[in-house]
């Protein structure tokens, strides 16, 4: 089992979502994240210029079995790519165990699609 964390542009979230569905990733969580980077955005409020380095992105978290890892990564790489600076990152890390709260089962079969 692996955990895939991907930080992608907000504007590409919809495409990434469709691509992940196509790669048989049926369930994942996401959240809006704010990051601090080198990129400055000038703003004006009531005549005062100020700049923010806040970058708004969406972070997707997927826990999946080994055979789905590479398809998921390929899907994100294709769907979130623009070629400009700021397209994001993908992090992959091992997951020790997974438990189903409903049934009490554990192991990677918990992640199998039950449909």
């Amino acid at each position, binding site marked *: 089992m692996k955990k895939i964390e991907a930080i992608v542009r907000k504007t590409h979230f919809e495409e990434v979502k469709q691509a992940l569905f196509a790669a048989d990733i049926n369930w994942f969580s996401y959240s809006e994240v704010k990051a601090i980077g080198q990129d400055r955005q000038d703003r*004006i409020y009531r005549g005062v210029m100020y700049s923010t380095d806040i970058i708004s992105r969406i972070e997707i978290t997927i826990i999946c079995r080994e055979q789905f890892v590479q398809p998921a990564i390929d899907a994100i790489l294709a769907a979130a790519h623009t070629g400009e600076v700021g397209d994001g990152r993908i992090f992959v890390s091992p997951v020790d165990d997974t438990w189903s709260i409903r049934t009490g089962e554990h192991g990677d079969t918990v992640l199998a699609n039950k449909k």
Partner: protein
Amino acid sequence: MITISGLDTVWVLLASMLVFFMQPGFALVEAGFTRSKNSANILMKNFVDFMVGTVLFWMLGFALMHGSGNGFIGSWNLFDFSFYPDTNIPKECFLIFQTMFCATAATIVSGAMAERTKFSTYIVISIIISVLIYPIEGHWAWGGGWLSQMGFHDFAGSAVVHTCGGSIALAGAMVLGPRIGKYAKNGRSLAIPGHNLALGALGVFILWMGWFGFNPGSQLAAEGTVNATAISHVFCTTNMAAATAGITTLFFTWILYGKPSLSLVCNGILAGLVGITAGCDLVSMPGAAIIGVFCGLAMTGSVTLFDHVFRIDDPVGAISVHGVCGILGTLGVGLFATDGGLFYGGGFHFLGVQTLGVLAIIAWAFCLGWITMKVLDKTMGIRVDPRIEEEGLDIYEHGETAYNS
């Protein structure tokens, strides 16, 4: 013998409703241009202004303003406005219309003092404005006092309402000092963006609509050709100045900052409305357009001046919008009045009277405002503790917040 006119009465009552609707307009502008942690406090202050104004203006303010008295102050008729004659409208109709104006003058102040004023002290400030500062200078210009005897013209209150409110706002913001975090250690001005410009912009639209009661309603009549023409003309000049002031601000900020600034265009529209209020009946349509342009330029310059040079923290721009543009509008009558204005060959006399009038009102409102704030600062305390200011007035002053998930 003038008989009461039903049409006039309905028009003035309708206009009163429109002026009343300026209260939510102010509330939304002030709430939108400040941070969400202080929204409940801002809304509460706007309610206080209107409620206190209603009671106190009826109790005493109306008599001090419109009683015969002398040139300086009206009469002392406590809980009694029966001295006032019925004219083309009943006295109660006039009372309610005037009450709306009193509350408007008071509510201007809350924006400049936002996000750091102790609530209990603010109630006292609101009382003093409603019963003392506003009615007396109002008597000078509108109640048969010394300014009106000199021929001072302020149709709907650029000076009487707006410059008065703006001057008290200036005194309040000066005594309070800037919000925590408004200025960097080296004195550089920092932006504290308002939490919801959509609320602010809706407030500006509402105020724009309310002004169609504020200005045309001040004709106090609608019946007959003369009045019908006059209120229609006032409608058009009022709208024109708002539009040209907004457009001017749009392009002026575009040139200054590289982008057209919504937060300042909101102020710009209000600046034009404040500016046209004094002369909306006497100036022509081009005159109104020019007054609007000057108000847009002056307001933008004034916001920057007060913020960066004087370092007076005015979160919503009340000093610039109401104070500065009120002055400009009052002087504008002396320049642009088609009958008696300097640019129409009327000479300097009218302009001189307008200048004297607006200076007198500034001096009165600012001095009394300053004394009030200073005395309250030494007695009740005018500013909340730094910790309350940082965590928000909503929780510590009211125990409830505007936004609850």
